[in-house]
């Protein structure tokens, strides 16, 4: 079983991504912005941390944006967990910033459930 963390300030987006990923048998945890996501990661038990196979994050969020969040994750024990960005932002400059921060991929919203599952499958075996 793979555990996936979804970070997005929209409850609607979190719920729909959670539904999609749970349908594929993944366990999903949610956080509403980068700051709460870091606390969530910090509070994981050893087993839960070991199961965490992927992080999916939005970019434009209050408190802490997605790019800052990715940079911070890269300073923790979770630095090898692939981070997928899921955002309406599609400019190349923004993508480069994400890549430099350490993102593994970039998915432009809106997407179909199967598009999310396809990309997740590349990282979570």
């Amino acid at each position, binding site marked *: 079983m793979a555990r996936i963390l979804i970070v997005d300030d929209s409850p*609607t987006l979190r719920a729909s991504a959670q539904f999609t990923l749970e349908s594929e048998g993944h366990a999903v945890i949610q956080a509403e912005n980068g700051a709460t996501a870091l606390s969530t990661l910090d509070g994981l038990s050893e087993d839960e941390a070991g199961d965490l196979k992927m992080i999916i994050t939005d970019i434009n969020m209050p408190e802490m944006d997605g790019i800052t969040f990715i940079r911070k994750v890269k300073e923790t024990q979770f630095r090898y967990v692939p981070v997928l960005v899921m955002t309406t932002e599609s400019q190349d400059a923004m993508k480069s910033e994400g890549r430099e921060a350490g993102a593994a991929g970039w998915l432009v919203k809106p997407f*179909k459930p199967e598009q999310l599952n396809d990309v997740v499958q590349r990282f979570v075996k």
Partner: protein
Amino acid sequence: MNTGMHPVLKQPYVSIGPGEHYATNTDDVISTVLGSCVAVGIFDPDLKAGGLNHFMLPDEPLNKNLSATESGRYGLKAMELLLGDLVKLGSRRRRLEAKVFGGGAFIATEEVGWRIALRNVEFAFEFLSAEGITVVSSDVGGASARRILYFPKAGRALVKATPWTGWQLAHDEAAYSQSIARTDHKHGSVTLFEGETVPGGVA
């Protein structure tokens, strides 16, 4: 998106069309004309900033949970873009106030026109409720088109019922509806950054 000086208000305005949105903390007035499309105005009273979008969901059979449908994705995107721009302006997404406009049905359109209008309105209310954003006022449904002036710094709106002049509006909205379907391939595009991360596992 067009900009100019409003002849009556003597204030700069930004005019948005279907699929567009604008958010600001300046004195710009945002204007749009709606037929069966819907526009949602979001105001952040702490930030004294707000914005308006203008969207339509492509036709699809009615479904209880609109956010989860194919066409709901277009509404989600419109809302996400607007809320995202407010966050960029500094919004903490607390105490947001929404106003919902549009969803009129051209009296001469066939049943599909009514269905699209209804879906657009239902989506807006469903989304805002799920996001915990209060709808402080709305002017939706009915048979007329609407001209909206939204004042983002105050969250105030002026709505004027307007005739569907010379079929132009109905034509524009139909063209937009078709263009959504055509541009669908751009959405859900994936870029993978090779060699950045090792899949699976914790250090």
